[in-house]
């Protein structure tokens, strides 16, 4: 009692440690353990989570490896062969000719420019519209489910279907767009008429939207925005719902107006939603094909040609396989430059 080393008596650490050492040796020298020890690395490997996990991700992983990565590699190889026509590719003679040709091809330049315009405008406009819709819907409205369902509805339709709808919408004579413009414009003209000058607003604004090279691309962007803004709304709405109500209340108590609250408190917190939606939209814009193909076939004309359509035209219509493969590699590289940084950021934030 009261000795300096008193408290240590209660601690079994020191005592057992020496015992443990002895027990260790007897156990090892003793019996089954010795055998178990020898088999242990193999047994451990068999039991390891890695080995157990292979049957689960292995077969799907193999599909992905072959069909995604194998195919992209093969595509690259084909792009080096100069293969065209009906025969088979010659893998013996490889060159970068197809890529050199890209630089000299004015239609590639046009398609590249159009793709960039489509990618930027379509992404930005869809995001803005989606954000606006999400903010409106998030204001505790009635029939929210119905309204959301309607906004997202176009997303569930095939591009073949929506392209057919929009061709009718854009019909220069009977299409709803021009009819609507005529309706509104006619009213404006009627008013202007009283000033005794006929501006002809209605006629000036109706256009052959999808055949006039000036408007084609923008008409497509508008239709695609119609189809995808609902998606942006869903993503933003999820982001908005993840922000605690207390923040809205705090901002209101701080005296922020609704607009300022959204600009300064809420929207900055939607960065993750914006980023993921933007990536999806941009990658879609790169591979958008079906919609244009239904409207224009393989020849949308220089003003609306985009890389994905050009790739199909060059490869499957003109059978210039290697050149088509090279355009496909450009598309792949563009997609990679969008998703590479995105996946890296996701990984850094631990969201993968």
């Amino acid at each position, binding site marked *: *009692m*009261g*000795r*300096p080393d*008193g*408290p*240590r*008596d*209660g*601690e*079994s*650490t020191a005592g*057992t*440690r020496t*015992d*443990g*050492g002895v*027990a*260790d040796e007897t*156990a090892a020298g003793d019996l*089954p*353990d010795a055998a*178990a020890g020898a088999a*242990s690395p193999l*047994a*451990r490997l068999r*039991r390891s989570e890695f080995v157990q996990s292979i049957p689960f991700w292995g077969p799907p992983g193999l599909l992905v490896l072959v069909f995604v990565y194998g195919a992209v590699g093969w595509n690259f190889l084909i792009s080096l062969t100069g293969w065209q026509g009906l025969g088979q590719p010659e893998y013996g003679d490889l060159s970068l000719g197809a890529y050199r040709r890209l630089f000299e091809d004015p239609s590639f330049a046009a398609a590249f420019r159009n793709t960039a315009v489509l990618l930027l405008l379509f992404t930005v406009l869809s995001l803005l519209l989606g954000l606006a819709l999400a903010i409106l819907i998030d204001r505790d409205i009635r029939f929210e489910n119905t309204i959301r369902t309607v906004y997202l509805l176009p997303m569930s339709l095939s591009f073949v279907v929506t392209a057919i709808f929009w061709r009718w919408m854009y019909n220069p004579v009977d299409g709803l767009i021009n009819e609507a413009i005529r309706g509104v414009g006619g009213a404006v003209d009627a008013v202007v008429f009283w000033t005794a000058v006929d501006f002809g607003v209605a006629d000036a604004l109706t256009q052959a939207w999808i055949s006039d090279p000036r408007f084609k691309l923008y008409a497509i962007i508008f239709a695609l925005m119609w189809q995808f803004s609902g998606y942006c709304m869903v993503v933003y709405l999820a982001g908005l719902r993840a922000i605690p109500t207390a923040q809205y209340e705090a901002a209101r108590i701080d005296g922020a107006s609704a607009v300022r609250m959204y600009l300064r408190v809420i929207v900055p917190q939607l960065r993750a939603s914006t980023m993921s939606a933007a990536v999806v939209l941009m990658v879609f814009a790169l591979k958008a094909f079906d919609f244009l193909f239904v409207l224009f076939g393989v020849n949308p004309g220089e003003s609306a040609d985009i890389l994905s359509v050009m790739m199909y035209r060059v490869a499957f219509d003109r059978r210039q396989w290697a050149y088509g493969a090279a355009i496909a590699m450009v598309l792949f590289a563009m997609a990679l430059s969008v998703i590479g940084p995105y996946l890296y950021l996701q990984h850094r934030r631990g969201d993968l």
Partner: protein
Amino acid sequence: MARLELDSVTKRFGDGGDAVVAVDDVTVEVPDGEFLVLVGPSGCGKSTTLRMIAGLETVTDGEIRLDGSRINDQPPAQRDIAMVFQSYALYPHMTVRENMRFGLEESTDLPADEQNDRVESTAEMLDITELLDRKPGELSGGQRQRVALGRAIVRDPAAFLMDEPLSNLDAKLRSEMRTELQQLQADLDTTTVYVTHDQTEAMTMGDRIAILDGGELQQVATPLEAYHRPANRFVAGFIGEPSMNFVPAAVEGGALTARRATAGDAFRYPLPAAAADAVDDGTDVTLGIRPEDIVVDAVDVDPDHAFEATVEVVEPTGSENVVHVELAAGPSVVATVDGLQQVRAGETVSVGIPGDAVHLFDARSGSALHSRSLDSVDLESRRVRP
């Protein structure tokens, strides 16, 4: 029924330069039927230790033995161990009966009716028979907790591992379950390792408690031993609520002195002989004194150990008052006094620090140099054990 040994068990996460040692060379033996509580602050490695015993984490170094045979490399299912999780970890799509039977189906060859019998009798023991056909989603927290226990008990394992099983219950239910769990463990007499961060749970439930800090084992002892004979400053401060008071001081001629920043008399505390023998002159130590040992407004304290002090704050808890006082000579301490004793903030009182109640710790290593004297307390005394 088994003896569980941890022998120099170490767990490192990651490797090379950025390896983190979660559990550092822990050695402890749990005799058959003992209820051992692993306690420590969060991140101390207690859960990792438990998960290594369960086989959910690999052991980096050292050995874990169950009844003398090494189980390091055995998969969890073959260790004959059942675990109760903090989240209860019930299978939400199965009824209580199916939840309890799952382990029997997967790990034994018992015929179906025997499995059912065991589920029924375990349910009866835990008084959850009427819940057997419900799903976890339809149960209250307390009921889920019982089912989680039942799922462990029904397998009749060699050892139970429990990872903060009561921490999701409200305070009242928690203290009820504490008693019940102890009783249950005593009845089943199954070796149990119980992890908690709550020192009250540790003190009241364990046959022995093992205190961990920073992955290192600080002390393994009976609850009273850990309380009265803490191995070091960490244990002394961790066990007991409010915690022990610590006053840094130097030994000078058989007395402790604490320098103070402002002018005036320094704190000087003459050490009783037993304590003075334990320390060398001129060394730096930490004086430890439990709040309940401090006498406030003392009349019959020997004048050497009585100090003038000002009451700063009084926190009444009903049964006792927690009194924060600042000694005129410097240090502030916390004392607990009877709930009926009148102490008011601002008062000047005489505070007694009895010589036989002081602990001394090495200022640098923190290890105990001297513990309080005790007359007739049985430190080996255990809880409900017959």
